């Protein structure tokens, strides 16, 4: 039946071969005309990669060494734009800042990366947690170094947070207009300690178990919210409804406590800490940049500023 050929009407049949031929012809023609121009463009692009559409869509300004371009390099970069485009030349001296805030942030990044990798092998259950830690230590390729990096970075981060705070205190950088940022910093200190504490339980070993037992037993004595704390009994607190119970998900350090630690450690606290870090870095800049001594003026600039009388 002619209808079933699917080759159009009126009996005029255009074969599959015919159609292929004409399409091929068109293609060959277009390749003949377009290819050379496209090739030329490609070669030009290779000669001057910075002129290509791809390049200019990523990098939106020139890189000649001019003050404007150097500023744009910071301003137009999503990772750098929290930084000021220009800072006091003394502010980058390590003797003034110790670089402790930056090191702390660097350690946080190390902890995030190693922590995410550890999560691939770790199950927060009583049956598996400690076994997984042993497995990571002895069998997973590079598992031992990952775990040790996570552990040591965690210890170091607590230390660098304290040193950062100590430096800020010594240089008086908590004073106006930076009071608000000092408070954000205090919250970040608390979150760092909480991250450290919640991570302690996760190996589910004797050390962590008893440390968390001791730590959460202190929560019994929380004023108002703990069943052994001041006013706790008056507010109806018992071992089964107080703040310790909420932290542990039970009256003893058990499976619920392990799971809660894990979730706070890996999701809850890092998110809150990240948000506060963004605020912290932003405020550093808005409150006048990294603090340091008053700006040093070069002799030549000094003469120019104060005029010939002091020359």
């Amino acid at each position: 039946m002619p209808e079933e050929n699917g080759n159009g009407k009126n009996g005029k049949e255009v074969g599959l071969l015919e159609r292929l031929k004409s399409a091929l012809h068109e293609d060959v023609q277009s390749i003949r005309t377009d290819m050379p121009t496209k090739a030329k463009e490609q070669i030009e692009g290779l000669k001057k990669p910075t002129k290509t559409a791809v390049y200019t869509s990523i990098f939106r300004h020139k890189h000649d060494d001019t003050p404007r371009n150097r500023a744009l390099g910071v301003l137009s970069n999503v990772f750098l734009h929290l930084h000021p485009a220009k800072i006091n030349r003394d502010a980058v001296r390590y003797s003034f800042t110790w670089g402790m805030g930056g090191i702390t942030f660097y350690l946080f990044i190390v902890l995030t990366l190693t922590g995410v990798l550890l999560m691939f092998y770790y199950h927060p259950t009583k049956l598996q947690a400690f076994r997984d830690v042993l497995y990571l230590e002895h069998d997973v390729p590079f598992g031992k170094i990952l775990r040790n990096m996570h552990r040591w970075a965690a210890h170091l981060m607590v230390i660098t947070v304290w040193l950062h705070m100590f430096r800020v205190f010594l240089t008086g950088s908590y004073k106006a207009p930076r009071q608000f940022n000092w408070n954000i910093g205090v919250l970040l200190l608390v979150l760092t300690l909480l991250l450290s504490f919640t991570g302690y339980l996760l190996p589910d070993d004797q050390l962590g178990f008893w440390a968390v037992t001791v730590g959460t037993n202190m929560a019994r004595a929380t004023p108002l919210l703990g069943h052994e704390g001041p006013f706790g009994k008056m507010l109806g607190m018992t071992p089964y409804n107080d703040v310790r119970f909420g932290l542990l998900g039970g009256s003893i350090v058990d499976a619920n406590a392990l799971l809660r630690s894990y979730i706070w450690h890996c999701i809850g606290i890092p998110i809150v800490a990240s948000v506060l870090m963004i605020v912290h870095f932003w405020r550093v800049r808005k409150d006048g940049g990294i603090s340091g001594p008053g700006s040093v003026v070069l002799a030549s600039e000094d003469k120019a500023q104060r005029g010939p009388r002091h020359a």
Partner: protein
Amino acid sequence: MWSTVAAFLAAWFIAFFRFFLPRTLFEPATSFKIGYPEEYGLGVDTKFQQKYRIWVDRTPDRLFVIYARCTHLGCTPDWKASENKFKCPCHGSGYDSEGVNFEGPAPRPMDRAHVEKSPDGQILVDVSRLYQWPKGQPSQFNDDGSYLPV
């Protein structure tokens, strides 16, 4: 309008905290039987430490059950038979053979669990009912249920 939004958020805020307090727990039973009084000789018996976190302690006229939780910060002390004392590994609190503190940071003797004779003659222990002797306050260690006379 805004009060509706505020009420909505407040309700969720409260719900968020309530969410963390489960209604049902899957924890070890607090009440259990530990056999007959005649099975225990004088002194400290540690056979139920692992299972129930208790020590059975018998003196010439009494049998009582010490809840094996250090009154400092809640670790489980060890019974040192050679030194005739309980020693907490966490911060070094020491207790004599009746669980009365004499060294370290512990603020009071270890708590004792409620004991009674069950109808079948076994000792029934309830660690959810504890008898204490807080510092400077009257002792509950002579209350009914804090010991079995033997």
